[in-house]
């Protein structure tokens, strides 16, 4: 029998005890989980704000020749962020651009936020484009300004349509934060890897996987709830 497997089957209790309870190792995991949640949560917020701004800017730029420079700026952002790996972005931000900030957590939040913003921007833009042009025309014909029409008429409908895609992005972002350990930061993944390195005990890795799974299932449920709520006016 494979030793690792034997280990699991024969002394599961000892195994878990050593990996999680001994020397209060679960506290380390818990602290890591806290950081993971904080990074993912704030990065999501930043990502949504950047995403909406960039999407609106791109749509406005496509309709107004005077704003072409803004469209090009947005395209540059999207190309660079989506064209380079998140780990490389993280390293550049922590060791170069934000080298003056020693606390890695805010740097990670900013980096993941900027990264996610690029993906959210394209999702939101697709949502805006999918709203019938007649909606904008109806809003403008009532005398509403372009920004009022976007805010009160187009965006609410766009958000409703893109909710599933946004949910995907939020879930992907949560899991992506597992590379935050690259910049000397204790998220739940690097915490469990640290314990594994010290003890040769793999139990924390399984606990970590399970934790992500529970978080993602929770997010899926929450998103489903919002989708149902926003679909309330669809009943005919």
């Amino acid at each position, binding site marked *: 029998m494979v030793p690792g497997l034997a280990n699991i089957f024969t002394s599961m209790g000892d195994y878990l005890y050593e990996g999680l309870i001994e020397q209060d190792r679960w506290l380390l995991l818990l602290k890591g989980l806290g950081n993971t949640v904080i990074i993912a949560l704030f990065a999501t917020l930043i990502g949504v704000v950047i995403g909406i701004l960039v999407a609106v800017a791109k749509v406005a730029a496509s309709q107004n020749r005077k704003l072409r420079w803004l469209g090009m700026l947005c395209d540059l952002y999207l190309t660079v962020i989506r064209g380079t790996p998140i780990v490389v972005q993280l390293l550049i931000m922590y060791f170069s651009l934000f080298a003056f900030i020693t606390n890695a957590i805010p740097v990670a939040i900013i980096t993941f936020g900027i990264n996610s913003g690029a993906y959210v921007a394209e999702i939101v833009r697709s949502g805006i484009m999918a709203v019938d042009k007649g909606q904008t*025309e109806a809003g403008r014909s009532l005398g509403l300004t372009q920004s009022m029409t976007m805010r009160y*008429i187009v965006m609410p*409908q766009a958000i409703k349509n893109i909710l599933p895609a946004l949910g995907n992005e939020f879930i992907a972002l949560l899991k992506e934060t597992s590379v935050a350990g690259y910049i000397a930061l204790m998220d739940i993944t690097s915490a469990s890897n640290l314990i594994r390195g010290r003890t040769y005990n793999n139990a924390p890795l399984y606990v970590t996987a399970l934790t992500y799974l529970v978080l993602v299932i929770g997010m899926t449920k929450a998103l489903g709830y919002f989708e149902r709520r926003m679909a309330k006016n*669809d009943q005919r």
Partner: protein
Amino acid sequence: MISVKGLEKAFGTNLVLKGINEEIEKGEKVVIVGPSGSGKSTFLRCLNLLETPTKGEIWFEGQEITAPKCDINKLRQKMGMVFQHFNLFPHLTVAENITLAPIKLGLQKAEQAQETALRLLNRIGLSDKADAYPPQLSGGQKQRIAIVRALAMNPDVMLFDEPTSALDPEMVGEVLELMKELALEGMTMVVVTHEMGFAREVGTRVLFMDEGMILEQQKPDAFFANPQNPRLQDFLSKVL
């Protein structure tokens, strides 16, 4: 009230409006007919700048709306528009559809706007639909609500872009009926339509457009009884 001078509109190299001159006076009910692709809708949509003219001037109540410094949002408040596909806001209730613009533009307080909305809905017999969402309504109901949504802004002129073309036949009547009421109340109206009966009955003047030009305009009686332009004769022989 509306004055159009040398209006041209091109989409790319396709010239859709080839120099239109037109005066529309207060209280007139101008009906525009013509074959599809003749530029009727484009002309109507130029009047409130949903389409930007390529050339020419449009004046509304003494202001040149084609001038770069013109505040078009302000002027649009006085020009109601009704669309072929209703364009109600599906994420808002019927009452919210009507009150959105008056409230957000600061013309009315929320309670006041709500009162106006209910009064308008009452008028068209749909006050029980105030809290319904547009997808729950029939086409005729949607279009009548779209009309009162425009009326809630207290416009000086109403533009209708084929308001009955997307409706099931049995719902055309209720929408035309409401438009007739408006006409009787003295509303200035510009209507693009295929409803010749409406043109004859309600119009004070009928314009025939083809290939981006106004080829003939007459009082309704003369327009239908004694058309001069051969293209109009041909058109009427097909639609009547």
